[in-house]
């Protein structure tokens, strides 16, 4: 009981913060609402857009600029070192870079492919919602929670003792005498970590793609079927082209998430045993090694990786708005 009583002040402070925030807005609205005439528009813009604009500027725009600038400074952020930090990345961090590239190719393709397969299979079924809920459930679990769940799956015990990890046990049932210590098993441990990400993302891909498939007009499908398109032909000539845009959105979304993957690697291996990725190395450099120059340069590498994906999405968005 004590534990719960100790927690109440914490909830109280959260409630107080919310109340304070709302009271502040209320006052702002009461004052703003009294203003009439020419000033009304400008005041409304300032009050409605102002707080968000300030926060976004202070929280994203200025920090982004400072990080880019800081990536050209040394570890203590004092001396200008030009491209030394980037040279360091490309000279010493090849393993980290190649792991990250493997991640952004394999995890999104596998998640989207499996999600698409499931969406197609489920589209033809009656009781789809149970399967969908269960496959989708990992999406609600944190990466840390997922890492603990999968840590249990990958748990290693010497082959002569009783097995605790399910993966080892299954492999032994299949006739392998001494399964490897999965998490230390280079380079395959990278793929085992990716499986955790795929486990989480398949549900997302499935739900979004399933919605897109249901949005295909039924007359299109019926016309194709009258023309004799069934099975694979219907899939490759009708379904895929019709959901192409959604497929790409799903793929790029998972790619952006994967590029920044941090929690899984940190919790499972902390980047050891050849599993380091850019986002975790960035954290390690900034907050463990206290080399802010390296940390900033790694953050900029992530930024450069995301740019093409977001540009693609902006172009897509502009096309849509033009249609409307």
């Amino acid at each position, binding site marked *: 009981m004590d*534990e*719960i009583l*100790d927690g109440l002040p914490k909830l109280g402070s959260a409630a107080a*913060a*919310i109340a304070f*925030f709302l009271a502040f*807005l209320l006052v702002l*609205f009461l004052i703003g*609402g009294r203003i009439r005439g020419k000033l009304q*528009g400008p005041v*409304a*813009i300032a*009050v*409605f*857009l102002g707080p*968000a604009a300030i*926060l*976004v500027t202070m*929280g*994203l725009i200025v*920090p*982004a600029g400072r990080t880019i600038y800081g990536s050209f400074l040394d570890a203590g952020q004092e001396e200008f070192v030009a491209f030394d930090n980037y040279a360091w990345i490309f000279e010493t961090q090849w393993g980290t870079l190649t792991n990250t590239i493997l991640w952004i190719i394999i995890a999104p393709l596998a998640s989207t492919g499996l999600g698409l397969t*499931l969406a197609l299979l489920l*589209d*033809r079924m009656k009781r789809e*919602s*149970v*399967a969908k809920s*269960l496959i989708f*459930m990992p999406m609600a679990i*944190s990466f*840390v929670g997922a890492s*603990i*769940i999968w*840590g*249990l799956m990958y748990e290693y015990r010497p082959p002569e*003792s009783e097995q*605790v990890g*399910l993966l080892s046990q299954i492999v032994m049932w299949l006739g392998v005498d001494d399964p490897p210590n999965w998490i230390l098993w280079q380079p395959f441990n990278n793929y085992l970590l990716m499986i955790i990400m795929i486990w989480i993302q398949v549900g997302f891909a499935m*739900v*979004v793609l399933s919605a897109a*498939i*249901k*949005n295909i007009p*039924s007359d299109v*499908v*019926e016309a194709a079927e009258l023309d004799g398109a069934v099975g694979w032909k219907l899939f490759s000539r009708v379904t895929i082209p019709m959901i192409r845009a959604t497929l790409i*959105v799903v793929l790029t979304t998972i790619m952006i998430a994967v590029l*920044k993957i941090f929690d899984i690697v940190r*919790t499972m291996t902390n980047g050891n045993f050849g599993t380091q990725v850019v986002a975790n190395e960035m954290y390690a450099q*900034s907050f463990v090694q206290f080399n802010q120059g390296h940390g*900033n340069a790694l*953050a900029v590498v992530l*930024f450069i990786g995301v740019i093409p994906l*977001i540009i693609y*999405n*902006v172009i*897509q968005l502009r*096309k*849509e708005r033009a249609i409307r």
Partner: protein
Amino acid sequence: MSVEASEVVVLPGPDLNEEKHGIKEAARRKLSSPWAVLVVVIITVLWTIPTVGLLVTSFRPAADAQNTGWWTFFRNPAVTFSNYAEVITGGTTMGTGIMPYFFNSFAIAIPAAIFPLILASMAAYAIAWVPFKGSTWIFFGIFALQVVPLQMALLPLLQMFNLGWSIGDIPIFPDLNKEGSQQSLLAGTYIPLWIAHTMFALPLAIFLLHNFMAQLPRDLMEAARVDGAGHFLIFRKIVLPLSVPAIASFAIFQFLWVWNDLLVAITFAGGTPDVAPITSYLATIKGSYGAQLHLITAGAFIAIIVPLIVFFSLQRFFVRGLLAGSVKG
């Protein structure tokens, strides 16, 4: 004729359980084969097994959990609640229990879901319904801001909270250090976390809520304006109530996002029981007590039970938020 991305990005998204459009039932059944059912059943079972393993292990006695596989439980069922008791109180091994962190997670996630939502709905309204030059430009700019990865903002923000910020002599964010000490007044409070999460959530929240609000009927706004209502009144009495579905979806999405976050948490809160959330605690015990499977599984289950309850009870809203929020980053 392709399905546009808008169908993914614009609220409200399609539901999990409804079958409004699409291929006719008859065609669907005709195409359904026992093989498809088999594949789906296999994948569903595969996807569920890891979580079942966690749940089962968390209820097994310590010796069983550490020395035998969780699947042997079904042959030799022995249930105990002592793992949970130990994780909650801290017991003999773990120092503080999980409860302070559990409450921290609520205290962080609830305000960090409410603040950005309110600020974002205001900004979205201004962009959609207050006519001014450059509103389209701002809209695209906000969408494009998602290009900035969290990682880029961490160090500068941390400096801002710890040392203050100024441009020349003009203070932008005050230096909150007590005289002579190295401790910011904000250290050990939730405030940096609330502010950071709010900042990071705004671009996506504004983008999504704008998409929703822009679709509200123009006649309604004009009628209200003819009746003499100003922007503040229209926002409160018309736009907010009509936007509840979009706001609810995004609130759930944002709550889960903050609850599950680790990176922002360990950067701005460290690992102390004063402010660190449950994800931070889990990452720590996974590192320190990795061999105590019965304890870390119980801890993990306490941490994921909240998102799972939210997920299963509000799945429809969550899916909408997710369909809409597929570009969160």
